[in-house]
């Protein structure tokens, strides 16, 4: 994942869905370390709420988005109309395009594209990805589904 690092910003607001929360928190920790002030926000339910959060950000803020494509695009649009420029907004595309699902039964890391069920390529068990994310394995833990 490319790092979000723009040197002339001092403040970052991170929008995230519940599923990406641990990734977003990890990212917030990294941002804080390089001196940015950080705020992590769970993706608001209404457009109004999101707009309010965006408009109360101080000058020199950046927006970081973790989420599925649809909701990410909504926030991106709102941020643009709230006056952020394109290079102040960063969408964590890698989280959507190449997510990794850690098979809790055989430990194989599977390439997955969403939080939908999937079948492990190695042990063929049906798995449900969770929001338990390991920065060490760069993968989400996937639990077996028992019928």
């Amino acid at each position, binding site marked *: 994942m490319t790092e979000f690092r723009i040197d002339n910003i001092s403040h970052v607001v991170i929008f995230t869905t519940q599923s990406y929360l*641990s990734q977003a928190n990890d990212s917030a920790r990294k941002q804080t370390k390089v001196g940015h002030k950080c705020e992590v926000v769970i993706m608001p339910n209404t457009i109004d709420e999101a707009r309010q959060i965006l408009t109360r950000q101080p000058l020199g803020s950046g927006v970081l988005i973790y989420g599925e494509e649809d909701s990410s695009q909504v926030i991106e649009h709102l941020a643009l109309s709230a006056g952020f420029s394109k290079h102040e907004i960063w969408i964590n595309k890698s989280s959507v395009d190449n997510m990794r699902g850690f098979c809790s*039964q055989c*430990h194989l890391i599977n390439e997955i594209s969403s939080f939908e069920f999937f079948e492990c390529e190695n042990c063929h*068990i049906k798995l449900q990805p969770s929001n338990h994310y*390991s*920065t*060490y394995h760069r993968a989400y833990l996937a*639990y*077996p589904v028992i019928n």
Partner: protein
Amino acid sequence: MSVKVEQFPFPFTEDRYAYSNNSSLLKPARSITITDHYLKEIQLKRELLQANHKRCFRSLPISLESQWEAMRRIFAELAQSESEHFSLEKRGNEYRFQNHLLGEEERFTYRDSSSIELQPLDIAGRHVQEDLIIMGDRHDGLFLEAGQLCFPSNWSLTFVLGMEFKSIHTPVPGIDQNDFISKVERFISRIRLNEAWERKNWSMTISNMLDTPLETYANWGKLRLKVTDKNVGEMVHLRVEVQRLLRLPMTNDILFSIHTYLLSLNDLIQNDLWLKRLYTTIQFLSDDIAEYKGIALYKNELIQFLEKTLNEKGLSL
């Protein structure tokens, strides 16, 4: 394996249950307890390590120093607190640990990896009933850097290897409410050299299986669907983990030991106070925690069983 009732560390001190930092300072500082199940549990541990080594032992190279310190510490503790069963001799850097219960000995030159065939924590863990975890205390948090884990309550050592304390706890519902887990982390970071703290964690297991790793959930998780009003007392076990946190003085890392005890409900209900406390705890358990602990699937049967027993004994709450 169910333990004898007298040795069972019953966890509930109040009638309601909420996550809390229920830790207390231990004097003297200990990581290990030997129970009557020693031989059986050590045998089971060794079978698991033999059959599934990667599932049960993991380490990062950075943990080696603390592993040495933990092994020496555990052997010294055993020799001191259980001197009729264990002894430790030292000549310079040469050590000889004797386990008289097993009729075995371990010889090693301290911090010389060529003197041992397994990693230090993997050796130490084979002599104690506890699972052993090393949490490295780094400037940016506590990280899980090594572990010998044979009896986990539904988690995977491989997955959490290298992870930071707070992220390890992501699956626990409500763990971040009121900043709980950050406070616990701060508490751990303030544990002083050679100090040990103890807390109890509880859950429920169907059958008396100690080895319930996430990796085999597909096999043992199904048992939760087999609980009926007829077999609750026999199948459902209260699972208690006595967890201890010890600050290793040389490396400044944390040795986290987990001793798991199981007691069938049929045995537990012999004690009236325990019966009452378990009943109120289960009754007031929030849905998300019941779900997380896997109790939701048989909660009705469980409550009915406890109510029926209370009635039969003529007990009121």
